């Protein structure tokens, strides 16, 4: 909570601060001409044959040289560096990883000052819309970039567009959602482990609760945590959190609160928060049926922990297809290295070959349709009993509803979860919980009208 307060403070200070000290913000200092980081040294020796000789002309590459400063809220972006430097041997990429929860806190004063700002920086889904609207990212469809997003999943590109339709950010990843369930328990209780059939049994909120009741009879808890379901409900809304500067509480969010209460009262989940030790450990349990998590949930939660349950997992669609999370990346508007920055961004976000190699190596779902379709042709995952997650995610991406993200999502989601938790555990009535939620939003964002 404290950190969030700081981040908020930073955000507001940034908004006011940039106007006040425009004099310092004009000329950003060129990236420090230090020798390459460790990763760059590796990259030059181990050229990846798959990533060289595609697309661009040789002349292009020899022209580009210099050092690119990249700030990233996660390590994933760094995985592209090796391949990139094989293609652009004279470019050094310095990636600074800043812990995600403090990313805005670090970025804000730097951007306000303008000096020492990175050429490229990322924005995680919780605050990406804030950065997209802030104007610190360059227009990627203008000169000198002329980004062509025709191969990118529409959802990913649409998040990168600001309210005026200008493209500010792209991503190398997409994070479509799934319900990841245990095949052995499904066979036992539901009579089938076929993803198609299981998906049919849980195709609405009510249906999910029915299945939960059936599992309960056998002593199995359906969910690791009901809070995970918000990932999915988030795509089930018809309104964004904030429209015309007004807080909108969508109908689906109210029914989510009731669902949370039902789950808690009936003991359909473990009764812990996501990322709690018990929550992570439930991958290997014999009494927890499913996680409602997007693609990163498979990659970072289920896959690394599955040991005795290898092959006993599968993914299917829940009540609605959904997408949640992801990290976008954009180019700082005053960067002195825009050519280098674009070369790097293009490599990560728009180079199908690079994404294919990346997706194959790390199992991460990528943002280009052509790369995902190629990856869907490969063999399935051992953990998923041979199911190919790319093929599943591709089918989900086709069905996604429009993007309803706002600049306020991270904070509002957390406030909403804590209100839903108070209601679910019986600490507050629904009205009291909603009032507390509204008060939290009003405190965090005085500019939003709350009724």
């Amino acid at each position, binding site marked *: 909570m*404290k950190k969030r307060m700081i981040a908020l403070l930073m955000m507001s200070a940034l908004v006011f601060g940039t106007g006040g000290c425009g004099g310092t913000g004009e000329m950003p200092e060129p990236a420090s001409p230090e020798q390459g980081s460790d990763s760059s040294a590796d990259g030059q020796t181990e050229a990846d044959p798959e990533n060289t000789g595609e697309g661009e002309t040789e002349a292009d590459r020899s022209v580009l040289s210099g050092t690119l400063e990249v700030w990233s809220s996660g*390590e994933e972006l760094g995985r592209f560096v090796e391949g990139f430097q094989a293609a652009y041997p004279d470019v050094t990429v310095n990636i*600074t990883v800043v812990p995600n929860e*403090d990313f805005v806190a670090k970025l804000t004063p730097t951007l306000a000052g303008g000096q020492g700002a990175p050429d490229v920086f990322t924005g995680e889904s919780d605050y990406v819309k804030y950065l997209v609207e802030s104007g610190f990212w360059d227009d990627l469809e203008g000169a000198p970039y002329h980004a062509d997003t025709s191969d990118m999943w529409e959802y990913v590109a649409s998040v990168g567009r600001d309210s005026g339709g200008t493209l500010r950010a792209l991503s190398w990843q997409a994070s479509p959602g799934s319900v990841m369930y245990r095949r052995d328990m499904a066979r036992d209780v539901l009579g089938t482990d076929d993803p198609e059939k299981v998906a049919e049994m849980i195709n609405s909120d009510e249906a999910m609760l029915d299945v939960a009741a059936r599992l309960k009879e056998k002593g199995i808890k359906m969910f690791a945590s009901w809070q995970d379901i918000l990932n999915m409900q988030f795509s089930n809304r018809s309104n964004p959190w904030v429209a015309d500067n007004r807080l909108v509480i969508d109908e689906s969010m109210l029914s989510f609160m009731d669902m949370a209460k039902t789950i808690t009262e009936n003991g359909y989940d473990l009764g812990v928060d996501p*990322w709690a*030790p018990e929550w992570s450990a439930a991958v290997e349990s014999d009494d927890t049926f499913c996680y409602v998590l997007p693609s*990163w*949930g498979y990659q970072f939660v289920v896959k690394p922990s599955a*040991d005795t349950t290898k092959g006993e997992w599968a993914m299917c669609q829940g009540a609605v297809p959904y997408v949640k999370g992801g990290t976008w990346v954009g180019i700082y508007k005053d960067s002195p290295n825009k050519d280098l920055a674009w070369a790097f961004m293009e490599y990560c976000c728009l180079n199908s070959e690079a994404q294919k190699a990346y997706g194959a190596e790390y199992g991460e779902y990528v943002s280009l349709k052509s790369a995902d379709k190629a990856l869907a042709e490969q063999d399935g995952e051992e953990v998923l009993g041979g199911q190919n997650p790319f093929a599943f995610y591709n089918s989900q991406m086709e069905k996604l509803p429009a993007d309803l993200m706002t600049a306020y999502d991270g904070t509002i989601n957390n406030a909403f979860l804590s209100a839903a938790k108070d209601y679910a555990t019986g600490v507050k009535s629904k009205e009291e919980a909603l009032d507390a939620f509204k008060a939290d939003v009003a405190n965090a964002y005085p500019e939003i009208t709350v009724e």
Partner: protein
Amino acid sequence: MTKMSRRFFKGMIYAFLIFLLMLSVVPFYLVMINASHSSFDIVTKLNLWLGDALAENYRTMQTHVNIWRGFANSLLISASYTLLTGYFGAFVAYGFAKFDFRGKKMLYGIVLASMMIPSQVSIIGFYQLNLKLHLLNTYWPFILPGIASASTVFFMRGIITQSIPDSMIEAARVEGCGELRIFNRLVYPCVLPGIVTMCIFNFVASWNSYIGPLIIVSDSRKYTMPVMISMIKGLYLTNYGAMYLAIAISVVPIIIVFCILSKYIVNGMTAGADK
């Protein structure tokens, strides 16, 4: 009171003290033990004895960050900062405690007021200041404030007022001792226990400070321990084992500092000023 009941009473006290000892030692013990277990073991069970994942945790940790680099960085900052607070804090406190000058009350009020402002509030100003002074990406912003540590001044002023009698300073002056020399040779040694206490606090605070180094330093090779530990965590991944190992490593200097300095606290307390 019979012998039996006295013995029983003593036993109870010991049991209580042992309970308190466990309470404060067990968390440290668990951190050390968990550093040698895999992330999965840590989340699934309570580990009470060494595991076999120490080498693997070390590798995981080192692929994310160079922890020894961070260790050296933190040590450099914290040691310099602590030494500065120890000397200059007592120096300023001596001035406030034993000299009368115009505006003393107001100046002391300013010192106190500066303690009341939470550092989070001033962090943007702190960044801007260092930007203008061209001190970004250096350690000076964390070391130099050591000469103006308000809490040390506040604490030491109380100690100096209480434990240094005016007569002692006057006697030194009569003997022809200069003011600086009075402080260095007379006052400073007498209040050493207080200084050492403050040094422990300051060292721990500086060692653990996170948000300042995170914002001022952008070069990952200059990151301090807490920032590096936070980097090990990753965005979605939770490398508990590697984190525990890094935390275990970062706790060591604090324990060492405490072991060395606590000796001085005890020594100093038995040495009186007025002999």
